[in-house]
């Protein structure tokens, strides 16, 4: 088992190393290395999943990385139901996205091509490290590693100022969250004296509620950064500057879910802190709603998907926040399929339209790109929660969990968000793929993508359609499987027949209503969207400008910090104090040297006696001290 786990983790690293060091050699052939470097771990992780299904577990420290007296940093892996699902999802989705990238990135320079695959493999390596770590610090290594790869890949087209800035923004915003995460780690080590999950969770009961709340809130700060929740979600829409497969893999399917994974992984701590759970659920719900409303009026294909991702991540946090961790992870799992799929189709559209992203310039593309179009529809139906597609099952689990857990407001918000989700997704579909083409020349040049891109689409579409059915598998389905690790917070809530079906019907009805409304507004123009925008101008403007959050951040955080840095830190601290100290040391050295240079006579005999006397002096110094 250890060999298999090491294979899963290290093969992507090997691929990254080869492409990184020998990019001058692999060039256009980089995918020959990179794709197997992900595909093999994908197969191996399926084997591992099968063995975990049979009840095997793995939790072992391989070696002590930094032994410092009492403080020892382990390198070790933990494979249980949770991490098995995670690595299977990550490697499976990543494999198809790698395949897709072969077609999508074929306009790049040879070196850039190899570099891209190197980063991608490296990302998978760090993601798997994150998922398989059996201690907080190794998890943090993976956490930071995926952040690094995210930064590198967002800024992949670093010649473009907007891409470079977006990368920087992602990095800085993530740092804020990571800072909280790190302090959380310190507190865990301080209070529990260990970094290993197994030991930490076993002794979690010792924590007082206050400390547990503090720790979990700090950890959740990290999660909000990585998983783009309020208030740190602002980087994710900008991250769409990266190549679309990257958006698909990192900023939809895998990395951004790391926060959810982390909360689920540390559920033992969160269970100790009800307040933190409330905070998680509330922030998740608020984020879900806010992001969904922002997606309503946006005209940028990828940004809508990005807001959608933020919104769905909010759902996941609602799941883990109300205590149905398994449902949250299940939604993570299904979301990886359909959101990965939708980003890939968006990439396919961009590929066809030479990078055009504005919805208002598209229309009727389904005739030109049937595979892309229909797979997108599958994904949209899945996210809208139409049964029996994947999103329905997982979303329903979350909403049911929220309702059963007594979080009625959160349930209401989630249900309304489901309606909004269906609406903006089908707005996107109707504007993009149906109706009349609005830009003739774009439409004329559009073409279906090559098979290397469409086959992953089909595979993921099939996945989006069917993975939800895992909920119906024996022994409680996937949720039951995950609950073997995660436990059920609301055992008493159970799944009573009648209420469950009512909730299910409500959420399906909301999804259908959203689809129908979108159909009438954007196909039939029944309530004309333009007129509506005019009638509700203040709301529209507010939504269109994303609640002015970026502007607020600039006004209240960025500018004061920059100003303070410039006037207080630079002009005063740096110039006067630090430079003064440095120059003072320099002057002191010159002074001393100026005195000592008289010794350097350049006359060898003088040096001879200095050596003799020096030997004696050194002996006595050694003797006396």
């Amino acid at each position: 088992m250890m060999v298999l786990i090491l294979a899963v983790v290290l093969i992507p690293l090997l691929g990254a190393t080869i492409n990184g060091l020998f990019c001058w050699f692999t060039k256009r052939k980089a995918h020959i290395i990179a794709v197997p470097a992900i595909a093999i771990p994908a197969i191996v992780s399926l084997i591992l999943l099968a063995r975990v299904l049979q009840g095997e577990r793995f939790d072992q420290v391989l070696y002590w990385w930094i032994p410092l007296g009492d403080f020892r940093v382990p390198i070790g892996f933990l494979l249980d139901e949770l991490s098995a699902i995670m690595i299977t999802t990550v490697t499976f989705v990543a494999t198809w996205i790698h395949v897709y990238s072969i077609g999508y990135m074929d306009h790049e320079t040879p070196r850039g091509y190899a570099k891209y695959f190197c980063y991608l493999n490296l990302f998978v390596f760090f993601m798997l490290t994150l998922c398989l770590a059996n201690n907080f610090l190794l998890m943090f290594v993976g956490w930071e590693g995926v952040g690094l790869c995210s930064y590198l890949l967002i800024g992949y087209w670093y010649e473009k100022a907007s891409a470079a800035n977006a990368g920087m923004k992602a990095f800085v915003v993530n740092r804020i969250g990571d800072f909280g995460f790190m302090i959380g780690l310190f507190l865990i080590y301080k209070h529990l004296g260990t970094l290993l999950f197994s030991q930490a969770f076993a002794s979690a009961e010792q924590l007082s509620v206050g400390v547990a709340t503090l720790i979990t809130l700090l950890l959740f700060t990290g999660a909000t950064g990585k998983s783009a929740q309020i208030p740190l979600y602002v980087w994710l829409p900008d991250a769409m500057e990266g190549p679309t497969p990257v958006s698909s893999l990192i900023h939809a399917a895998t990395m951004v879910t790391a926060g959810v994974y982390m909360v689920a992984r540390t559920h033992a701590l969160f269970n100790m802190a009800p307040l933190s759970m409330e905070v998680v659920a509330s922030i998740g719900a608020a984020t879900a709603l806010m992001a969904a409303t922002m997606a309503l009026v946006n005209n940028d294909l990828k940004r809508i998907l990005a807001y959608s991702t933020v919104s769905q991540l909010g759902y996941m946090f609602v799941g883990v926040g109300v205590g149905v961790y398994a449902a949250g992870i299940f939604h993570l799992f299904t979301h990886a399929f359909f959101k990965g799929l939708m980003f890939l189709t968006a990439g396919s559209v961009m590929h066809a339209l030479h990078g055009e992203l504005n919805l208002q310039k598209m229309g009727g593309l389904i005739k030109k790109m049937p595979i892309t179009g229909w797979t997108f529809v599958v994904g949209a139906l899945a996210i809208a929660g139409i049964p029996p597609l994947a999103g329905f099952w997982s979303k329903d689990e979350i909403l049911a969990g929220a309702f059963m857990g007594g979080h009625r407001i959160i349930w209401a918000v989630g249900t309304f968000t489901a309606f909004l989700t269906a609406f903006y997704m089908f707005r996107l579909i109707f504007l993009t793929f149906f109706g009349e083409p609005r830009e003739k020349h774009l439409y004329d040049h559009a073409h279906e993508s090559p098979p290397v891109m469409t086959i992953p689409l089909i595979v993921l579409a099939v996945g989006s359609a069917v993975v939800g059915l895992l909920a119906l598998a024996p022994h409680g389905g996937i949720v039951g499987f995950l609950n073997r690790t995660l436990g059920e917070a609301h055992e008493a809530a159970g799944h009573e027949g009648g209420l469950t079906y009512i909730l299910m019907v409500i959420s399906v009805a909301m999804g259908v209503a959203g689809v129908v409304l979108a159909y009438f507004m954007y196909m039939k123009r029944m309530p004309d969207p333009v007129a509506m925008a005019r009638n509700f101008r203040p709301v529209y403007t507010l939504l269109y400008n994303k609640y002015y959050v970026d502007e607020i951040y600039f006004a209240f955080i960025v500018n004061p910090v920059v100003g303070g840095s410039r006037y207080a830190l630079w002009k005063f601290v740096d110039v006067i104090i630090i430079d003064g100290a440095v120059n003072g040391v320099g002057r002191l050295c010159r002074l001393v040297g100026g005195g000592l240079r008289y010794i350097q006579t350049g006359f060898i005999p003088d040096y001879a006696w200095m050596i003799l006397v020096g030997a004696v002096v050194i002996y006595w110094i050694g003797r006396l001290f």
Partner: protein
Amino acid sequence: MGVGLFQYTVLSVLVFLLGALGLMIRRNAIIMFLCMELMLNGVNILFMALARSKGSVEGQVIVLFVMAVAAAEAAIGMAIITSFYRSRGGIGVDRADLMKW
């Protein structure tokens, strides 16, 4: 009380220090070099005496190495003096004043 290690040490140190003294008060580069050989010889005497008193041959091995190093040093040193003589027109070490501040 016969001649023991102490007397050899005295001899060795005196030879060594005479060499060092020569290095300190002479300014003819060649003679300074000769004095360096003298210092090495002083060290050799001590090594030999220690080898003899400890009943170990290793001191003699070190002496052989010292001789080899002395030969190498003489080769390099003489080459330096030759080229110094050529460039500075003499072998007084006070002619080597370029590195003075």
